[in-house]
């Protein structure tokens, strides 16, 4: 039994697909740029910033893509409360929701201030992707369905493993951004990308230790 669970997990992971890079991010549905007074001021401020450090298509694609990427992490985390019995998984999921929701706000503001299209992620649910192309680490429909169906410790194991995969994808997106000519000159993009990379790497290590504890306990006779 236990043996099978472990093997099944390995098989699921072996089938995980890693999609395209940040520079070729998923198309997003544009929303109209806001036009009220305060955003006019914000746009003016962004223009002043951008005159000094021009942003590039890669920066825009990164910010747009990462919103969709984060949105999926939030969808995954919202599955946790009903499916887990572990307090530490609940805490982890709550942290991810809190952190990534705030980061989405930063990215949306940056894009709106530059009058770039921002996808609406508020209505996103488990079976909806931000476009069809996959960004690094994004869960496939099959992976998401398996996560949704899992309960208890099985959910915990899948959640951790898939969130590790998801976070690793975000780090890949940052790495690709920094390797692109002219990218990340903008201080908001630089700071956000560098911080996201550090925060998620720290969180991966934490999740790996949590996952190891589960797998070890499960294997004990």
């Amino acid at each position, binding site marked *: 039994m236990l043996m099978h669970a472990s093997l099944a997990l390995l098989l699921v992971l072996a089938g995980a697909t890693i999609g395209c890079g940040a520079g070729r991010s998923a198309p997003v549905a544009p929303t109209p740029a806001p036009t009220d007074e*305060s955003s006019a001021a914000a746009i003016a401020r962004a223009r002043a910033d951008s005159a000094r450090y021009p942003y590039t298509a890669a920066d825009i694609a990164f910010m747009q893509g990462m919103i969709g990427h984060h949105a999926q992490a939030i969808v995954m985390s919202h599955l946790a409360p009903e499916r887990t019995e572990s307090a530490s998984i609940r805490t982890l999921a709550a942290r991810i929701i809190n952190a990534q929701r705030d980061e989405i*706000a930063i990215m949306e503001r940056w894009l709106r201030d530059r009058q770039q299209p921002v996808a609406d992620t508020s209505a996103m649910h488990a079976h909806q992707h931000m476009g069809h192309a996959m960004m690094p680490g994004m869960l496939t429909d099959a992976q998401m369905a398996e996560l949704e169906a899992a309960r208890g410790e099985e959910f915990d194991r899948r959640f951790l493993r898939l969130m590790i995969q998801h976070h690793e994808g975000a780090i890949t997106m940052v790495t690709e951004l920094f390797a692109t000519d002219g990218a990340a000159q903008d201080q908001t993009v630089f700071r956000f990308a560098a911080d996201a990379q550090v925060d998620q790497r720290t969180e*991966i290590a934490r999740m790996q230790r949590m996952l190891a504890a589960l797998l*070890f306990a499960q*294997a004990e006779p």
Partner: protein
Amino acid sequence: MSRVVPTLRHMRRAFSATAVLTLLATASLAAQAKAPSPDPRIGLKAGRYDAGEAAWNMRLVSTTKSPPRFEDGVNSDLAFTGKYAIQGNFNGFVVWDISNPATPVVTTEYFCPASQSDVSVYKHLLFVSGEGMEGRLDCAEGGVPTAISGERLRGIRIFDISDITKPKYVGNVQTCRGSHTHSVLADPNDKDFVYVYVSGSAPVRPEIEMPGCTAGQPGDNPGSAMFRIEVIKVPLANPGAAAIVASPRIFEGLEAPPVHGASPADAEEMAKARAAGAFIATIGGEEMVLPNGFVTQLMGQVMSARGATGAPTAADSAALRTALPGIIAQMMGGSADDARGPKPGPNQCHDITLYPAMGIAGGACEGYGLVLDISNPANPRRLDAVADSNFAYWHSATFNNAGTTVLFTDEWGGGGGPKCRAGDPYEWGANAIFTLKDGKMSFASYYKLPVAQTSLENCVAHNGSLIPVPGRDIKVQAWYQGGISIFDFTDPAKPFEIAFHDRGPLDPTQMQMAGSWSVYWYNGSIVSSEIARGLDIFDVVASPLLTQNEIDAAKTVRFEEFNAQMQPKFTWTPSFPVARAYLDQLERDGGLASGRIRAIRSALTNAERASGAARSTALQTLATQVTADAAGAKDGTKVRTLAETIRGI
């Protein structure tokens, strides 16, 4: 925690009364022993230069806008020398003459963009950090257009400020990850050099841009620029010749301890297991002995893949050992190299606070807080490490003056997020306070800004310094748009707030970066670098929580220069204010009978009125009496310290 929960609940209620509180917010508050209720920090009006303000037990003396070329940059850290405060800005740095705190004057503007322009001063030298992709060697604006460029500066800029009105840009030291922050360390044994510890958190530069810069695991690539800090040695007489002399891997062999505190027993067990031939893998930066049941499972898989049956043979074991890193990587994420080790631990520090007088440093390094032995400046050595499941990202460290307590901050969300909302847990984005004994840390408590902020205000624990009140551990700390909080952590298990200042959000409609990046006590003033609003200077206002005598005693401590990341040890020259500060503390805590306190106060007053031999005799007599008081006092130690102070006046 029980202390905190009612406060937060109370604040949620108070949110509904925002309109009423806005009216109250500007009313001045008399010095109070108890925090005002409802908390006036709630409901403050938004604005850049006209935001609503609330203060308790401290007073804003002046706010001065940054010069025009810096007004739209981001103000960052502060360093001090003589009568000057040097303020970093993402567009360069500004030197302020703060000799009159009511009217700081810009002495020098130096335009030289780089994020985040962390500044430190040592004698005639100024060091400035550059981390971002846009920093240029020629200080021009416009950034660097290509991913690989010979024009980019990521590392440390060095300025000669012998004439502070005309800084001379005398050198650079480029580093592989740039410099997010840095800390300066004087070598007690060699006056001709100073060391700079560089922490960088950004991705590694391409090797074509800077030879020798490569990423990866140190086990695989001994030259990896990750998993290390850089130590720069600067000859004071020829700062242009500064160079990296060591890249210590202070994280090597780091065992992630279970929540709080590492155990030498764990390390011993690991060594034993290794000697016994156990299967060991690195998971999440931590080396783990794989339990038997787990190994049996994996062995079964490996044997089945090899077509083997029956009891595992030595060949099966060898096959599992070879396959193990790959299997672990597939199960836990990461690469096979991660699982093979050596244990990489965190791969960089955010900030390192050096406490040379004690020969120790506090490193805030990703998921860990480290204590380092820095008695050999070029070769720091790790003494202890702690992890904390509530901490996202260890940002900086402050020691208490005795070096018996260390406080780490968690800059959750990187400083750009509103992490002080009513729903954000008290343990997240807070300070964690540890006691420190023989180089080992034990968790004592958390301290977080004890008032909720709006979602328009970036807020998380950030930079601050001690206030040199003798006999107490008091820190003034920046919380970005959460404002400034002064708190006492003399008892590391029971920190409490004694003063604050706060403004409303910068923008009424959306969160924009603002607030106090750093706030430090410097020679009697509290100076704050306001990200979007310029330079703020404050006074502490006496209250029962911090008396005028205690403030006066703190003001007797003076420095020629000050960098918060090179923490100086305070010593108090015996004086009347210092003696009276101790007396106030004995009264507050019931450390000595009140009749004796009154008598000693009156004897001190008389001695101060006297002069020459009469004063000296009066003080010696009093000191002898106070020494005798110590025996029967509740706080005999403090009474003896008081006696010594009186004897030394």
